[in-house]
């Protein structure tokens, strides 16, 4: 095994119990972390002077239905200082919520709304948690694996109320 990346090294030092697993695939580092500490971990990665993960490149959800915990939230951070991308993952049970990282990166505002919209995972302390791509009042979360591709109303007759 080669030397672990600086970020992983520091992360393990600071949060020994919360870094659950570290994987490297095709040169990309992924750290699976505990859900309860995600906010603190992000705050640390953002503010540590040696790391400075100042940009949240992406945040998305994954549905592993029928596994439990069902969902996974994936954070992709970028540091201009190290020119490095780091991926963080947390697992979320259905019905559970995740701490919002909106107060660290404003970019998370819309990205978290999108996860909420398409997967139905709520975020705590998000200032404006509304649906973003679908309209208010839409039922269901399309990127869930148990949502049919054609849509739930496919091939059903439409009967207007009289």
């Amino acid at each position, binding site marked *: 095994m080669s030397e672990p990346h600086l970020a992983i090294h520091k992360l393990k030092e600071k949060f020994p119990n919360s870094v659950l697993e570290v994987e490297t*695939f095709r040169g990309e580092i992924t750290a699976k972390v505990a859900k309860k500490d995600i906010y603190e971990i992000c705050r640390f990665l953002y503010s540590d002077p040696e790391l400075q993960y100042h940009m949240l490149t992406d945040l998305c959800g994954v549905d592993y239905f029928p596994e439990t915990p069902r969902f996974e939230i994936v954070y992709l951070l970028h540091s201009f200082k190290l020119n490095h991308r780091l991926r963080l993952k947390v697992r979320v049970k259905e019905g559970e919520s995740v701490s919002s990282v909106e107060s660290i990166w404003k970019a998370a505002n819309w990205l978290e709304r999108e996860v909420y919209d398409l997967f139905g995972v709520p975020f705590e302390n998000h200032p404006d948690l509304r649906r973003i791509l679908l309209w208010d009042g839409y039922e269901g979360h399309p990127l869930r694996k148990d949502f049919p591709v054609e849509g739930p109303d496919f091939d059903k007759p439409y009967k207007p109320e009289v």
Partner: protein
Amino acid sequence: MAETRWMTINMGPQHPATHGVLRLVLELDGEIIVKAIPHIGHLHRGVEKLAENRTYHQVIPLTDRLDYTNAMGNNLAYVLAVEKLLGIEVPKRAQYLRVMMAELQRIAAHLIWLGTHVLDIGATTPIFYTFREREEVLRIFEEVAGGRLTPTYLRIGGVAKDLPEGIEEKIRDFVKTFPQRINEYETLLTQNIIWLKRTKEVGIISKEDAINWGVTGPTLRGSGVKWDVRKAFPYSSYDEFEFDIPVGTVGDVYDRYIVRLREMEWSNSIVRQALDRLPKGPILSDDPRVVLPNKEMVLTDIASLIRQFKIVSEGFTPPKGEVYASVEAAKGELGFYIISDGSNRPFRLRIRPPSFLNLGALPKMIEGSLIADVISTIGSIDIVLGEIDR
């Protein structure tokens, strides 16, 4: 004393200056914007969901339709991600062809931006010139790939076909004349007093804010951050080309305009370099798992016929794992994050859309400014709703 009240105005979704189907709800205090709330999703087609039900090859045409002004760049981002997942090497000639097409596409995308952006602000002339040049690029695409807007030219492992005969001369002609065309646009705009009044010190976003909001591309560089995916994480042999990253200073609409103009010049230079140094050789990888055998083999050899049939009907099965690959598209960092469960369809395909995050920062840029500046600010971040809504 009379009660002061904010006025709420709805702009879009069919307003011509919102570049598609963006709806903005503006709260106004006189002419000053107090609050701006973008509403998106009118063009949501569920591309990420669709992709989960298609084989890897079948996703390529979907990517053309994300940012429909930058189809080659979208293809490139997707095939790079799949190639990374498979761990296959692309021949040099294919890499150079990809770079050449991606840069021509960037020029075409920036030309649309320039034409429509200045048209929004009131200069009706430049759009005729920019679309004249864009037409030349699209004609080149038509000859090379067979399609103009949605060429679907790239394949996993290379490109669809080699350059047709005589096209190199046409590209060379275009590359030779294009710098003068940029000069023509500049004589119309860069020193134009009306243009300056409408763009200088308008829609400012600072360096720190831009990074925090996840803004990428020319909008980020306009704010003075010298960062470009092509330099930071070089892909498709970009490290072999000479080019600079133009940056702005203030982060206003004018800076973003200048950055894009300079970018077109560099793109033009990259196309010329690629053309001059275009290596000879195959245009597709020889990996039998993903690349179709050539037609002659299919017609004469039973093993190739079976392989062709298997790839077309079932696709291929990459190893389990997950990768993220991104390119510098015309709007910013376009990334594809693919999770593979070892089957022939992506388990999850996430598109990291640059326009989505750039648009997220729009309220930050326009709150506190005049309502007339909304138009120029939207134009300057160059959004395409096909990519935002997916």
